[in-house]
Structures are given as C-alpha cells and as structure tokens.
C-alpha cells in the first residue's frame, strides 16, 4: 500500500503548486517551466563539469603523490572557472587546411547530444519540488541509447575537418570504438528493461525499489554497461581515440580556445551523464539503500532522493577517474577483442539469466548464476594455462656463470 502511494508521489512530473501559466504549452509544445528547467539543467551540467574537473585533478594529484590545483581559491577549487576564462579569452585558431564549415560546427555536435540525454534522467525527489525529471519519456531507454550515439558524428567531423592525419586517425578510432561498444551496452540494457517491463527510466527506478537493485540482480549487466559506457566516452583505459602518447589528442589536435573547451566539456559531461545513467538503471536511483522501503524508511528517499542520487553518481564518477590513473591504455585490437569477445557474450549471458529469472523464478536463476561462475572459472583457468610462463620468468645468471666477452659478442675493440 505504502509502495503504491510512494510511486504515485514520485511519478508526478509536475508539482501541483506550479501556477498554470508556467506549465501551459508555448512554442513547439515547450512550456515556460520546460524552458526554465532547460536553463537550470544547463547551468547544473556546466557547474557539475567544473567541479568534476577539479575533482579529477585533485584525484590525479593525490594518486600521483602531488597535490593538484592549489592556488586559485581554497584548495584550488576555483581553478576550473579560471581555466574557462582563460579558454574564452584565447585566440580561436582555424588551421589553413581545415574545412571552414565543418570545423567550427563539430564541437557543438559533440556537446549537444550529451546535453540532450540529460533530459530523461530521473534525478529523484527533493522535499517540495517533486520528482526532478525534465521529460519522463516512455521510450527513455531508447532515447538514451540513440542520442549520445550522435556524438560520434561530431567527433568524425572534427577529425576529418581538421586536416590533420593524427585527428583523422583518432576519428577512425572513435567510429570503430563507438560501433563496437554500442552493442554490449544495448544488450546489457535489455536485461534492465526486462526486469522493469518498461522503457521509462522513472519506472525502472521505481521497479528497482520493489524488486531490489539491478546491480545485485544482474551484476554482469552492470559490469558490461559500466565498461561499455566508459569506452563510449573514451575514458582511460579505453581512451584510444585521444591517446596522447600515440596520436596526441586525436580529433581535438587542431582545436584551441573555447572550441577545444567544448570537447572537454562534452567529455566530462558524458562522465556525469553515464554515472547518472548507471545510478538510475542499476544502483536503484534515488533510494537510500536496498530494501529501505521494507524497513519503513522509504520516506527518506522520497524526501531527499536527489541527494542520494547525486551521492551515488559522484562515487561512480570517482571510480571512473580512479581507473584513469590506475591503468595503462588498451591497444585498438585489444579494445575490439574486449568488446566482441568479452563484453558482448557477457551481455548475452546476462540477458539469458535475466530471462530465466523473469520466467522461471529465482531458483533456476541462482543455478544459472552458479553455472556461469563455474564456466567463467574454467575459462580463466584455461587462459592462465595457455599463458606461457617462460616469458614472465627472468633468469638470473649466477655470479660464477660463464659470460661472453666483448670479442665474443662481436663488439668493437
């Protein structure tokens, strides 16, 4: 009973206290409230990205025994606004070899899809304001897969129009990467959709509150989705598209000033977006902890859900940033192998297991999980056995062992 009441409360898109003129549709079906919400969202994204960049630099600094930004503001917290100012005042260069139309257009095509995807995210309720979600689409899941994929077009445009071979290589890598990782991501999302029996993101969060968080019911799906989105947004260790040590920044090589800033903004907004999506789809959205409703603590989530959502999102952002400084970069063929040979099969396994859970119930599902784990263990063991140990072992020659002289080696004198 309480569950139903809660869901009615949280599904309410427009709070009742809102005056009518705010919600009346205007041009193109957009109401004034929608426009305000868009501006608020844009401001939120821009500010969150600034905080995120500062966070990343701090994380990087402390992981690398440094201190990160320190000078602008307390603990360097105003470093990002300072950087934005610097980027805005920087000269906007267009290389001679660049395409004059496509080159300036590309940065916006990279950022806008990321921003648009924020529209469907169910941020959760906060005291009086009702449930924060700008457009509670019924096809939200399809939308959030389709729109960010447009980002690839912007990156290809940037890479091609720069007239630089490094950026061309980078954009070729982007295409390969995006196409490969879109698939496991969608397969992982199928499981989520099956559990909730809906494509609406708000409904998915609601259903997780009833059934338990998806991260526990389909951990494989979460892993696949998280890794695939990390790769989609070109974050380390999947950052082959920008790979500074190889192709020195990929599609962004020739950009400067705020145009380059747009790419940077898009990259960090994508991190925020994907963390938010993972939170909504797998980590129970704005729920405080799994099963809190059963304990009668559902009202906390209903009142302050937004804060818990943000908290989970920031934890995911931190994990993504941590990975960047802990791992080396994959090579392009290994990246493809990872997508097609590991993530995709894993996604299918998750899909089948979820189907078993939905159709046959929990016991066959548990058996399926057991079988999967056993199979994975066998696979891992085979892989370990096939790895030739000799290449890892180093031979230390003993002190008395015969060693060749320079004449024996054929070196001069």
């Amino acid at each position, binding site marked *: 009973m309480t569950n139903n009441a809660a869901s009615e409360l949280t599904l309410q898109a427009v709070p009742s206290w809102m005056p009518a003129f705010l919600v009346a549709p205007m041009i193109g079906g957009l109401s004034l409230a929608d426009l305000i919400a868009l501006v608020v969202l844009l401001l939120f994204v821009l500010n969150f990205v600034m905080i995120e960049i500062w966070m990343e630099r701090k994380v990087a600094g*402390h992981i690398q*025994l440094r*201190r990160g930004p320190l000078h602008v503001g307390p603990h360097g917290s105003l470093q990002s606004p300072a950087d934005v100012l610097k980027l805005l005042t920087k000269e906007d260069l267009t290389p001679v070899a660049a395409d004059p139309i496509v080159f300036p257009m590309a940065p916006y095509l990279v950022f806008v899809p990321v921003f648009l995807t924020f529209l469907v995210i169910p941020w959760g309720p906060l005291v009086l304001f009702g449930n924060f979600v700008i457009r509670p689409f019924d096809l939200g899941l399809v939308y959030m897969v389709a729109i960010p994929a447009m980002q690839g077009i912007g990156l290809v445009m940037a890479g091609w129009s720069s007239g630089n071979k490094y950026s061309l290589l980078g954009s070729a890598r982007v295409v390969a990467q995006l196409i490969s990782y879109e698939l496991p991501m969608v397969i992982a999302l199928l499981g989520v959709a099956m559990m909730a029996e809906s494509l609406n993101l708000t409904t998915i969060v609601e259903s997780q509150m009833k059934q338990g968080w998806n991260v526990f019911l389909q951990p494989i799906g979460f892993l696949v989705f998280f890794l695939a989105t990390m790769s989609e947004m070109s974050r380390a260790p999947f950052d082959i598209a920008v790979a500074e040590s190889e192709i020195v920044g990929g599609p962004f090589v020739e950009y400067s000033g705020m145009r380059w800033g747009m790419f940077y903004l898009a990259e960090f907004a994508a991190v925020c977006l994907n963390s938010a999506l993972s939170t909504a789809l797998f980590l129970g959205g704005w729920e405080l902890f799994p099963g809190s409703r059963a304990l009668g603590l559902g009202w906390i989530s209903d009142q302050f859900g937004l804060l818990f959502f943000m908290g989970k999102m920031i934890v995911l952002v931190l994990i993504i940033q941590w990975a960047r400084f*802990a791992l080396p970069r994959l090579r392009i063929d290994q990246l493809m192998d990872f997508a097609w040979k590991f993530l995709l099969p894993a996604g299918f396994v998750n899909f089948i297991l979820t189907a078993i859970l939905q159709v046959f119930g929990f016991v066959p599902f548990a058996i399926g999980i057991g079988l999967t784990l056993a199979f994975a263990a066998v696979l891992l063991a085979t892989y370990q056995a096939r790895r030739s140990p000799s290449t890892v072992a180093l031979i230390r020659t003993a002190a008395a062992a015969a060693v060749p002289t320079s004449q024996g080696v054929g070196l001069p004198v």
Partner: protein
Amino acid sequence: MRGVLGGFLQTLKSFLTKPVTRLYPYEKPPLEARFMGAPSLLWDDAVDEVVCVACNICARSCPDDCITLTGDKYTDGKTNKKNIIKDYFIDLGRCSYCGICVEVCPFDANEMSPHFELSTYDRMTLVYDKDQLIEIGRGVTRRTGKPEPVGPLPGILDPSTYR
C-alpha cells in the same frame, strides 16, 4: 584481473600517502652546502677590494667560453697584486655551472654561490657584470679545495640565507 586490482590498490595507497610536492616559490627548496649556483666573485674584507688578480685562467678554462674579463694595473699597494680586474662579465645564459672556473682559480678569488633564481624576460640581463657578481658573492666563503669543516655536519643551507 589480479594485476588490475593490484594497480587500483596501489593507487589507493598512494592516494592516502602524503604528497611529495614542495610548493617551490613559497617554500624554498633545501639547498645542499655544495650546491653550485651562479659563479660569483669574492670580496676581500681585510683590504676591502676584490680578490681577483685578472690572471684570465678561469676564462681560458671555461668550457662554455662565458667569462670575459679585462685587467688594470694595480697601484693601490694594499696587497702585492700586479693587476686587478677592470671588467668581469659572465654570461649566465651560457654558463653550465660546472664549477671548473672555481676549481682552477689559483688565488681563491671566486666561488659558486647558491644564487639560482635567474628567470628574466631579457636574455641580456643574464650577462652579469663585475658588480653583480660581487653582489651575489657577498657572504659566500671559499669552499672548493678546502677540507670539509669538522664538527657538525654541513647539512642543508637555511633557505633565508640565499637570494
């Protein structure tokens, strides 16, 4: 998998350890007693004039040819020098801080000072003349070729003592 997790744990460990950064312009680095900064000319306090006798050995021994000097006849009679320097230039933009000029000086007239903050907007200001070299040499004592002082360890220079 184990290696990847190891990387994560190691970075977590270093995240929690104290940073090694020194905040340089605010926090001066500890300079060792033997630190070789810009070469400087030593001042003889006893007779209140420069020690150098313009023998030109430092200029000839300099691997970078960055020392130029001219001498004058010495007439004051306070010491038994024959010559004294009129001009003495060191192009610190070329100097490699090797310390050879100090090592070869037969009159102990120069020493490497701890002066190292040479940033400037104009290359020409790096050509130090006699007065500047004497200025950075104030308070510097001849150490090269002398035995290490016995007693407390020489240790680290107090950052407030160098310019």
